[in-house]
């Protein structure tokens, strides 16, 4: 009975890692699409579908574990943290898809604040990768770094917002494009938030403390 439980916990860990890897791939693709290789954006919706499917699978697995094995202590934390994490990961997938949508629709690629967006995309990728790394290694320090890094990405968003306001003031004809870029920046900022959430749940799974509170 116990070995079955261990096996299922290992499966959960594996599936979650895989889901994280898919998210990483999705946002890496959107970043590349933003860099000019716009054909890559077409591959994101399929990935997004895969991520959604994984969310449902992992959810089912978690519920099955909760019902049949009644895990306690750290095992219970792992399962409940997994349940929360998949929601965030799924949102990351959604947002990557939204960015890909915008990127494949806009025309004037390469203008405005593309360079800053690129840095922001790299920061978002870094956060997602680091949060998945933290999960894989169950590493609280790494998770804390991810959470602290969220400020960097928030600041980057603020800067982009200001830059875009100036941009619109100078080139009113590119207003729509600028708004699209703002959306993209916002989505990257949201991805950063979700990555930070994932990191929070990693800390909870390891220590039992969520956002400084003992749950």
């Amino acid at each position, binding site marked *: 009975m116990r070995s079955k439980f261990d096996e299922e916990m*290992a499966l959960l*860990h594996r599936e979650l*890692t*895989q889901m*994280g*890897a898919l998210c*990483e*791939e999705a946002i890496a693709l959107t970043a590349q699409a933003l860099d000019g290789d716009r054909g890559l954006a077409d591959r994101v919706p399929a990935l997004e579908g895969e991520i959604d499917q994984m969310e449902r699978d992992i959810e089912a697995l978690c519920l099955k574990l909760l019902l049949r094995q009644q895990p306690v202590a750290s095992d219970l934390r792992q399962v409940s943290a997994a349940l929360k994490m998949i929601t965030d990961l799924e949102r990351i997938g959604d947002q990557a898809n939204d960015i890909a949508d915008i990127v494949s629709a806009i025309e004037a690629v390469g203008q405005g604040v593309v360079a800053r967006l690129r840095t922001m995309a790299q920061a978002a990728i870094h956060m997602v990768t680091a949060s*998945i790394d933290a999960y894989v*290694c169950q590493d609280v320090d790494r998770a804390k770094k991810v959470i602290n890094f969220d400020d960097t990405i928030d600041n980057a968003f603020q800067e982009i917002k200001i830059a875009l306001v100036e941009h619109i003031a100078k080139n009113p004809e590119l207003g729509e494009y600028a708004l699209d870029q703002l959306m993209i920046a916002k989505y990257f900022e949201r991805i950063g938030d979700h990555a930070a959430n994932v990191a929070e749940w990693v800390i909870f799974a390891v220590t039992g403390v969520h956002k400084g509170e003992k749950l």
Partner: protein
Amino acid sequence: MSKKIFRAILLTAFVVLLTSFVLVLLSLYGYFSEQQGIQLQQELSLAAQGVELNGQTYLEHMGNREYRLTWVGGDGRVLYDTQAPVDSMENHGQREEIQQALASGAGASSRMSTTLMRRTAYYAERLSDGTVLRISTDQVTVLALLIGMLQPLSLLIIIASAVSWVLAGKLSRQVVKPINALDLDDPLSNDIYEEFAPLLRRIHHQNQQLTAQMKALRERSDELTQITANMSEGLALLNDRMVVLHLNPAAQTIFQTDDGCEGRDFLELDRSTEMSRAVQKALELGHGELRETRNGREYQFDVSRIESDGAVIGAVVLAFDVTEKAAAERSRREFTANVSHELKTPLQSIIGSAELLENGMVAQPDIPRFVGRIRTEAQRLVSLIEDIFRLSQMDEEAAMPRETVELLALAQEVCTSLEPQAAAKNVRLAVSGSPSPVSGVRPLLYEMVYNLCDNAIKYNVEGGSVTVDVGLEGQNVVLSVCDTGIGIPPEYQDRVFERFFRVDKSRSKAIGGTGLGLAIVKHAVKYHSGHLCLKSTPGQGTTITISFPAAGPTI
């Protein structure tokens, strides 16, 4: 074992004690009853004689004896009894011993009391007058005897048990002690019961076998580790559930992990979906491959399934570093594209000019200009083809005749031939240094110095200067070409030695040249096992320093 021996000894002691006790009891009882019987019979015959002589008076004067005498008449009626009044007694005619005595003259029988605790023995004798005299006495039965002895007997048993308990414990410990002290690592050294000798020999033999097998196993695994440790390719062994069984050091570097990764999920080491897909594919179909970048280098990953008896037991991932190969492939592709482009450009110009001339579209005074263009373009084509030819010759690494070349003289020779170009651009050309012989291929070295100086003049500014310095520096001959030209931006400094690379593509046409000069220089330096160093500051000038091993006496 000692418990078992202890129990056996104890049990044996008990059984021996009990059986000997019972046997002694029975035999003694039998003996005493027999003796008693004989004594009774003697008493009976004495009493019989007495009764024959004196009749009832004898019996009456007998007094109280430990036995009882009964005189029974021929009809069974009791005539006299020494212990009971005659009237109360029934007819004894049916008693077994009386009947026997009546019939044969003597009779005997014994009867148990109802409690089984006493037994009465009877002996009877027929007297001459037909009456029977019977003697009887009570005996204690075996059971009564036993019960009577119960107290001393139990005492005896307790003492015997205690003694045998202690003894058995001691004995069993003594028997077991040497067995416990057996040295199983060296079974033959034990001096113990000879019954153990075959077992010990067997253990010794198996010990030897085990040691040999362990050694062979360890050697094999060491061998594998050694071989894989020295592989420059990354090697990862996974089981059928993608758990890492082994990673060689190269693979640990690629996946940025350490020895602790064994037993972990491969997905934790490498999350790339392409990679998991390749491994999945290999586990399902037998083979998978992908090319991906890790830590800034490009790797070719080959994944193969491992099967044993038709069952999939895992997968092996081999990673080859293909960075150089990929770069070479890329530069070859670029080179081919460049060559075609570079060859086509002058030809287009020639064809254009020729067509205009052919159709008489060119006015008479312009004809020399057009013909001149055809000539210069053809000249350019020739020099291009010559350069390509020379490069491909060097690519082939064909052996060329080596000789001792004096580099200073060579540099002076080059500068003399470049004097017109320098003069045209108003660039001062100077050669300095000491004679420095190197062993090398003269045409190649000439080409090298020529290209360097040619570039130094071409990319110079009006009134600039080019200084060529040749000299010995330790074991090396060092040649440096220093100009005061336009310089090379830092981001292009690595690329100027690439074939057809031009820093400023727009100006290349005006300056001329094939874009192969520095590529030839690089190859020539490489051919002579030299070392090339470029220092440049945009707007200030460029210094290219080349060092060769000096021509030793052996060359």
